């Protein structure tokens, strides 16, 4: 019995060491660090193996894209406010409500098109394999924004422009 327990203990200890080693070998410390810091650009850099030139080019693309992002953001906000105001003050006017909703959806579609173009530009800076992986990660979320990203925003408390 003593030998059995001793052998089981040895086996368990060795298995724990092997499990820990496999965990360590397959983890991504830089990705976890980026998550802890909430640094999306650090994630982009480490997860898509960007060198200095690629990283600088992507930062430049983001900076160029930011003004149009802000403009789209402002227009969508105004459209939402207009639609909500219309619903409150004139709820019976279905034509006006539908028009306001259509304007909002058009703005969202324009915005989706702009961000899709932007991420394709970003992907083009990466290596072909990394670019493909990047697009596979972000495009479905952009296309299915209402279901995949919007629910998470309820937890967000600050604007990140």
């Amino acid at each position, binding site marked *: 019995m003593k*030998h059995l327990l001793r*052998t089981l203990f040895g086996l368990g200890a060795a*298995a724990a060491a092997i499990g820990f080693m496999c965990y360590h070998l397959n983890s991504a410390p830089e*990705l976890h660090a980026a998550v802890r810091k909430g640094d999306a650009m650090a994630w982009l850099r480490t997860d898509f193996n960007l060198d200095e030139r690629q990283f600088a080019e992507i930062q430049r693309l983001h900076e160029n894209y930011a003004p149009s992002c802000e403009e789209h953001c402002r227009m969508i906000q105004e459209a939402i406010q207009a639609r909500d105001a219309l619903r409150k003050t004139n709820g019976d006017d279905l034509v006006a409500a539908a028009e306001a909703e259509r304007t909002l959806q058009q703005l969202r579609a324009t915005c989706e098109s702009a961000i899709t173009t932007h991420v394709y530009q970003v992907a083009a800076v990466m290596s072909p394999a990394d670019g493909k992986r990047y697009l596979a990660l972000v495009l479905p979320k*952009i296309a299915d924004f209402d279901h995949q990203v*919007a629910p998470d925003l309820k937890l967000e408390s600050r604007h*990140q422009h």
Partner: protein
Amino acid sequence: MNTSRDKLSEILQDWRVKPPSDPGFRAAVWRRIGQQGEATWSAYLRAHTAAWAVAAVLTFSVAGVAGRALAQARVEADRETMVVSYLVELDPRAQAILKQ
């Protein structure tokens, strides 16, 4: 015949063994018991080599796969978090929701 047997009985009855006292006797006995225990574990392992080898291969495989799966699950979860965080920074629709 009976006389010689009686003599032998008398001799045996009178025979006393008086060994010299050995102060290290007990320690030597415990040492031998200890050595016997160690040998027994290795003997136990030798006797069950096949069973323990199979158990070791299975246990180590499960541990390795589990460690890898845990690490990958964490990487995927963290990546998902970062994709959402990244898109929130880029997507005006997200910004509009956050500003409301």
